[in-house]
């Protein structure tokens, strides 16, 4: 967690309601350090855009405070916030050339011709579009338009740049290329970036930290590795990467480790949620942390499993197993020597350590990605 004094953007108890009845954003708190790349990640309708719009000044929070560089921006109109913004549909001005689009923020700030030309050229260079000044937006490919939108948001050298699903309309290959580009630009300019996406892969690749939103609430905010390895909420465990989830009930609490009964088996797991004996819970374990036919006694948790299906994926194999009354339990095993031995329908033993298996809040499975 960043300490309060080097926070550049701060959300404090921010709530937002459009109709005065339902809260779209509920009591959101987070802060972004200067130069950091923070991603708001969440399923559709979770309030990501709303948060971004409040930060940009197009929506006002119903309650709470938003500060940029220590100053509350409540009374500041969008044009005075000095925020570069990339919209989901780019919002390029179709009647202006690329050069005109880039020069627009400079001209309204009163830059003279020479400065405009120089800065536009530099911004175009940054997004590798030099020489396209005189094209119209509709004469550009999707990826090029995207770059123009980014260049336009950067050309007046704002300290804070917001991007709302800027890569949503691009195909996969281009998206990956642009992810890399945006990261490169972020690193070379050192701007503070707040980025919105519903694509967890994208969030993992690009961000310094990720805030996972669900129904207007931040579930967890952490570095990508921590989010993946140490999810603190069952929603995060489900949303980020692939995860096996077993619903159960706590039978014994023993410091950090507790015992959970699921499908007639007792499993030892790491206690994350503040649960008591008798509480419903979700166990979460990554497929790659499940060992198949381990040496007996190596793992505390050892279970019988039936192989329902095996999928060959080149560098690894995916086993779909029947464990603890769950038919969707997945194990991922590297394609190393000697795995041809297990066949579909076999009864096998599987195992994992208690620290790889996390006891989280009960999952209500209501929204999915």
């Amino acid at each position, binding site marked *: 967690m960043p300490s309060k004094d080097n926070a550049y953007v701060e959300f404090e108890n921010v709530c937002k309601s459009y109709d005065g009845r339902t809260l779209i954003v509920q009591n959101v708190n987070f802060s972004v350090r200067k130069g950091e790349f923070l991603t708001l990640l969440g399923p559709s309708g979770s309030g990501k855009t709303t948060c971004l719009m409040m930060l*940009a000044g*197009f929506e006002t929070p119903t309650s709470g405070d938003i500060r940029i560089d220590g100053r509350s921006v409540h009374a500041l109109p969008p044009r005075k916030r*000095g925020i570069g*913004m990339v919209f989901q549909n780019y*919002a390029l001005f179709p*009647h202006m050339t690329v050069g005109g689009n880039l020069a*627009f923020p400079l001209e*309204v700030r009163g830059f003279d011709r020479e400065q405009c030309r120089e800065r536009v050229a530099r911004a175009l260079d940054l997004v590798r579009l030099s020489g396209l000044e005189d094209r119209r937006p509709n004469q550009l490919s999707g990826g090029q338009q995207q770059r123009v939108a980014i260049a336009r*948001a950067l050309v007046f050298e704002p300290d804070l740049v917001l991007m709302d699903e800027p890569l949503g309309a691009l195909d996969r290959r281009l998206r990956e290329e642009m992810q890399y580009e945006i990261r490169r630009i972020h690193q070379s300019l050192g701007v503070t970036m707040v980025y919105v996406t519903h694509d967890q892969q994208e969030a993992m690749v690009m961000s310094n930290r990720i805030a996972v939103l669900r129904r207007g609430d931040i579930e967890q905010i952490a570095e990508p590795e921590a989010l993946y390895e140490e999810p603190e909420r069952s929603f995060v465990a489900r949303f980020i990467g692939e995860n096996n989830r077993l619903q159960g009930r706590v039978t014994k609490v023993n410091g950090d480790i507790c015992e959970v009964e699921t499908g007639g088996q007792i499993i030892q797991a790491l206690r994350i949620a503040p649960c008591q004996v008798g509480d419903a819970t979700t166990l979460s374990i990554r497929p790659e942390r499940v060992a198949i036919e381990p040496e007996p006694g190596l793992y505390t948790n050892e279970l019988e499993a039936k192989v329902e299906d095996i999928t060959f994926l080149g560098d690894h194999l995916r086993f779909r197993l029947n464990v603890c009354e769950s038919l969707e339990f997945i194990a991922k095993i590297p394609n190393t020597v000697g795995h041809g031995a297990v066949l579909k329908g076999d009864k096998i033993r599987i195992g994992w350590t208690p620290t790889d298996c996390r006891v989280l809040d009960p999952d209500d499975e209501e929204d999915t990605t």
Partner: protein
Amino acid sequence: MNSNTNIKTNTLRPRLRATGLVLPLLAFIAITFIAPLAMMLVHSVYDPTVANALPETLNLLREWDGKSAPDEAVYATAARELLKARQDRSLGRVATRVNRVHPGLRSVFTRSARNLQNVREGPYREVMIGLNSAWGDIQTWYAIRSAGDRFTSRHYLNALDLQPLPDGSIARQPPERRIYLALLWRTFIVSLSITAICLLLGYPIAHLIAHSPPRIANLLLILVLVPFWTSLLVRTTSWIVLLQTQGVINDLLVTIGLIGDDGRLAMIYNMTGTLVAMTHVLLPFMILPLYSIMRAIPPTQMSAAASLGANSFQAFWRVYWPQTLPGVGAGSLLVFILAIGYYITPALVGGSTGQLISNMIAYHMQTSLNWSLAGALGGILLVCVIALYLLYDRIVGIDRMRLG
């Protein structure tokens, strides 16, 4: 090569069928629109009435020196052909036609022809001058000769307040007969004003509709369209109810004491009436193209402009307004063209000072029966409109125009 011809024959049939389907429409347009239009335009330059009725007289007049009254042969032929025209009842039309060239000749023609019935022998020169001294005047013969041209630019000249002189030169009409140019000019000014007012009133309305939530937008759109569902007459007469001297607005102003009872405003049967009523009638034609353009402009454009540092005026003027120009062009062109040929509203509420060129065309069609002049006036309007269209095409590009 072979496969090529195959493809051709394969596409020929559907194409023929498609052509067959639009044929009724083409025929309809040709009969009800293009043919009358062409006829009126022909009328404005081609008039064989006199040439058909007095062919030999005209032949002889062609050799006439034009300095003194023509010789006996011309008189004799003219008398014969006038009588013949009287018999096949074309005399009235001939007289009217000549009268247009030289006012006052109609009665000379009809009366002389009636009297010539009783004349058995010449010399016709003396007889005719005896019947009416006008026959001794060379202007009469000039008029006949000039009216005898099958093709004439006279009507167009007339419509532009010009007249051809006997020596072939062109001069302006005497001041008391100059009406059309002023009327044409007034029509232009009025149409321009109406277009400007419609744009000023329609732009904010279109903006409001385009950026309202769908339910409200639909309601507003219906309000805009309601005038289309009401008879033009009802709409126009309701303006009479509102604007007349004893009308609602004047009563209201008197009641609240803004004007005295003797100072009631004349807001109808003059130019004000024409302007108000026509703006009302034509406003939807401005709003609809604007609306359709504005709806296509995503609201994020304005947000983007604001986030880039533009104030509301800069955002409007540099981002929004340029993108609505095709709509502004389309709406203005539409309103202007409709206004320039508008007839019924000025006729009903324009009084004498609020009349436009179209009312004059109607007058010549229905009352003076001078279809040639009506055709010429219409032709001039048509040329103006086409010129405007081409100008628009040059400046904005007609393919950028969106009507809805």
